[in-house]
């Protein structure tokens, strides 16, 4: 028996994964390095900044042991810029993901480079996780893969650290979500026709994918079913033609 779960990750799972993202905190209390499955956390010494996984940062924030520095792309100006990009500059595509980090030379293997998503300690971050895409030195004006989840979580639990009025950021995020959701839904309308149904998902975030996965899949499936009979008819016709050709050739020989 197949599991009754839908394919792919559920939104809850996605947001759980997003808590792996590193964010920058300003600690208010000393804390030694903790050994975690994903590696050691940096020791916290106020007022030195440190990059911590989001879940840990939120935990410390709730205990008032740290303040979270919001990533620069969450600034209203940056969000406005992205919305402008999505609505007027290029209304078809999604805004670009953050630029790839430059591959670094691998000291262990001269002449080769480290895999892009491997950090210095050698453990590989799963591909959507770009190191530092949510920390304080992330690039401005690019949405990382987990933008929606991280932004929601920061707004929910660390709204006082955002710097800008939380309402404004929330409003801009809502605009952005709607713009992009509309684009994703529209993708199903170009399914018809030969060569259709192709859409670049570059720059689409994890949560958006998880949300529209069910819808898109069922639409595609439905379209396939509707088209199944005509497709079958076309196949048959082709086969017949082929058969006819073959017999012709046979005849010729």
């Amino acid at each position: 028996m197949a599991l009754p779960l839908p394919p792919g990750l559920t939104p809850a799972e996605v947001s759980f994964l997003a808590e792996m993202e590193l964010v920058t905190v300003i600690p208010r209390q000393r804390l030694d390095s903790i050994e975690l499955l994903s590696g050691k956390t940096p020791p916290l010494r106020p007022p030195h900044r440190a990059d911590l996984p989001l879940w840990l940062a939120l935990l410390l924030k709730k205990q008032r042991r740290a303040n979270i520095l919001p990533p620069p792309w969450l600034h209203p100006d940056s969000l406005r810029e992205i919305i402008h990009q999505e609505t007027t500059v290029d209304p078809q595509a999604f805004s670009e993901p953050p630029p790839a980090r430059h591959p670094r030379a691998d000291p262990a293997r001269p002449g080769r480079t480290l895999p892009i998503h491997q950090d210095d300690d050698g453990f590989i971050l799963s591909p959507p996780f770009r190191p530092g895409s949510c920390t304080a030195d992330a690039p401005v004006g690019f949405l990382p893969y987990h933008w929606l989840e991280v932004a929601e979580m920061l707004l929910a639990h660390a709204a006082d650290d955002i710097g800008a009025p939380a309402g404004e950021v929330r409003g801009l995020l809502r605009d952005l979500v709607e713009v992009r959701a509309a684009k994703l839904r529209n993708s199903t309308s170009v399914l018809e026709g030969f060569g259709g149904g192709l859409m670049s998902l570059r720059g689409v975030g994890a949560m958006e994918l998880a949300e529209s996965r069910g819808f898109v899949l069922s639409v595609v499936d439905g379209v396939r079913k509707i088209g199944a009979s005509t497709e079958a008819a076309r196949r048959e016709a082709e086969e017949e033609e082929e058969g006819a050709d073959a017999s012709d050739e046979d005849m010729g020989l």
Partner: protein
Amino acid sequence: MASLIASRPRARPAHTHGTTRCAYTPDGTRLVTVGSNNTIRLYKTGFDGEPDNIDDCQEQNLAVAAANTFFVAGAEDGTVSYYSLDTLVFDRFLLRCSLPVRDVALSPDGKWCAVASDELTVRLVNVEDTSRLKTLREHKAPAKHLSFDPSGHVLALSCTDGIIYIYSMTADPPELIRKVDGVIGRVDSDSEVSTRVAWHPDGRAFAVPTPTRDIQVVSKHDGEKQRAFAHGHEGHITALAWSPNGALLATAGKDKKILIWLAKDQSVIARYDYANVIDIAWHPTQNLASFTTSDGEVYICPEFVPEMFENMLRLPKQPAPFIHDPREEITNGRRADAGAHNIPSRPRRPLDDDLDDLLDDGFGGPGGDEDMDDDGFVVDDDGAGYTLNAARKRAAEDDLGAYPNKRSAYFQPQVHPPFQPGSTPWRGNRKYLCLNLVGVVWTVDQDTHNTVTVEFYDHAFHRDFHFTDTFGYDKACLNDKGTLFAAPPKDDRPAVIFYRPHETWVQRTDWRIELPKGESVLALSLSDSFVTVTTSANYVRIYTLFGIPYRVYRPKSTPIVTCASWKDYVLTMGNGPVGPDGQCRLLYSIQDIKHDEMCQNEDTVALPEGASVQSVFFSDQGDPCIYDSTGTLLTLLHWRQPSRAVWIPLLDTKLLPRLASGRKHETYFPIAVADNKFHCIILKGGEKYPYFPRPLLSEFDFSIPLTSAPRGGKKKDKRRPDNPDDEDEFMLSGPSADEEEEEDSTSPESESLRLSQSYLLLSLSYSQLADQLSHNKIPSVSDRARLARLQLDIDKTLLQMLALECRISNGDERSMRALEIVKLMRDRTGKMLEAAGKVAERYGKRVLGEKIKELAEKGGDSDRDEDEEDY
């Protein structure tokens, strides 16, 4: 107070009922009054007969401003007219507005006339050439009053929306440089209630009426509230004017009173009963003032100031009533004790320079300093400012200090003023005493006492505390163990040093020490084991942490500038011999107090010409660092051995990529060097010191200045939010990563730059660590391991550089350079050379590979020779 004038002046029925204004010409010969009938009256000073009249004028004149040869009047029909004082006729219209003119102001040089009308913009028209116009449009509501500061660099605009806008006139077009909110009220433009900005004649502050019927003094350079003239009037203020030397302030209110205040202590010295006064003008030199009422009457009051206080008018220009006069702060302690004011060859320039700094704080327009250079050739003896224009501006500065001696102008050594690292000057009633990575100490002046607050970044480690301070501590140091304060001598009480440890295991361990009388503290520092105090008597006093005097000595280079300490090391800095630029060379000494060793003796602080030191501190690794006024962070290398010290630049903030676009203007307030990062506070908008609320700390990686920052970002620009300032407050982080990244991924040059940067930095920290270890008699195992690891890191970086060289060269053209890189490697075991050979092989550089192999073979001997010269 006596509220009588010997003979009450008679009301002169000059105009009909309505707004009536008056102004004296700067030379004081005439009083011009305008009113609602179509006559302008000109009263000759000292002549009690009928005034001269000008009948050819507009009706309902609402504003007037006078220069020596002409005056301008603004009327309700929106015209601004120019009248000549020589011929006493209407000359021409300067400007027409569509709405009533509310105020006109002439710049001190008489060239520009600013016009406020009920329109949203304020226009400045050139008096000689009316086609030249400047427009001020940053304010969002009609302006009510305008006033130029005494230098003419700045125009203050009281707006009907309750905000004072301060525009810089040196920039073209004029720029808004400050908004002062929360001082004046929202007042209609035709209301009799005044919100006029009255500049104090020394130009560093202005007074404005508040809605609470007080007069608030606000400083120009930071927009902070200073002293207030409070509880005098029982009605709204309708007029105010400073006496020409700034010693007195006259105000009129709706309570039908005119008050004269003493600027020094804000007390009322005279009270007169006059109703409906709406404009007051002081005569520039005599004890004479005139005022006009809304009934159209003009009063000319000789003996305006009571006889008792008449001498106040003859004083030279008085300082504005600051809570903490920034000027006093600088002169205090420098040489005040030496009676320097009487010495003819008193070095004059430092005072003047500091003053200029203060005055120009935040007003760094292009022509900001132009008039500071021309030496006023007219000496304004009585400080009355009647010698016009340039000389008048000059007077603003000269009168306050001792008179400059022109003969001593040939040789004026500039002495570096003393400073306390990590502290800021008073601004309003607040001041940071100490800012570092442990926490923050600040104080608030509450008039009778101060409130000192100590806040820690690490809340769990220490608890924040604050206390009421009756001594008036103005310097402090903070570290993990305790807090050290110093108070200046006051009245009869000598200077006090106060140490408060954070944690104790006995009842009470804080101690207080009094310095000898007349000696004040210039700078103090606190380390884990010693308290260092440098004093104005040119002593360095060292105490242990519990107040036992450990050593007192006089440093060789004086006057002392500052001191810093770390563990047993104490660094003192003082003014040495005069350099070719007329500035004293700064000399520093570093001593190991406990072992009584001299590390560096009177060595020079490497500064470019004209630059000064902004901060001195030890890094967390214990290396001395300085941050200079050119924005460069330098550290001292090899300082533990005498005369081997070298200053190494760690970071030139001017080359930071965030400034490369040229659109951002910001400076950095140094806090500390820790973790191989420079911690600072980013200051924007011409600010020089951080203020409240406490800004976030920012970190910058070191970057030894090799080339200027990449001028990338052409593509980025369009993606950047339009408002770089806002964005920064938010991300405050440091270099914006994207620009660098873009650059990195495209060009191998920047990659090679990055590698050589890290090579330099690694070698630097290697030699620092090696230095430290060689000084410790028995280095610990972990230190040795760190050293070995650093060495490995250096070689790894070189290997990467080699790989890059091989990758980007097509033939052998870069092999010489590559071989040189290989020769720089420090590894003695030959493993690195082996790896280098492999790299060369992999890229098919056979010749290079062979050379490296050769090097490796003879390596044993040659390496040993080189061995010694490393570190």
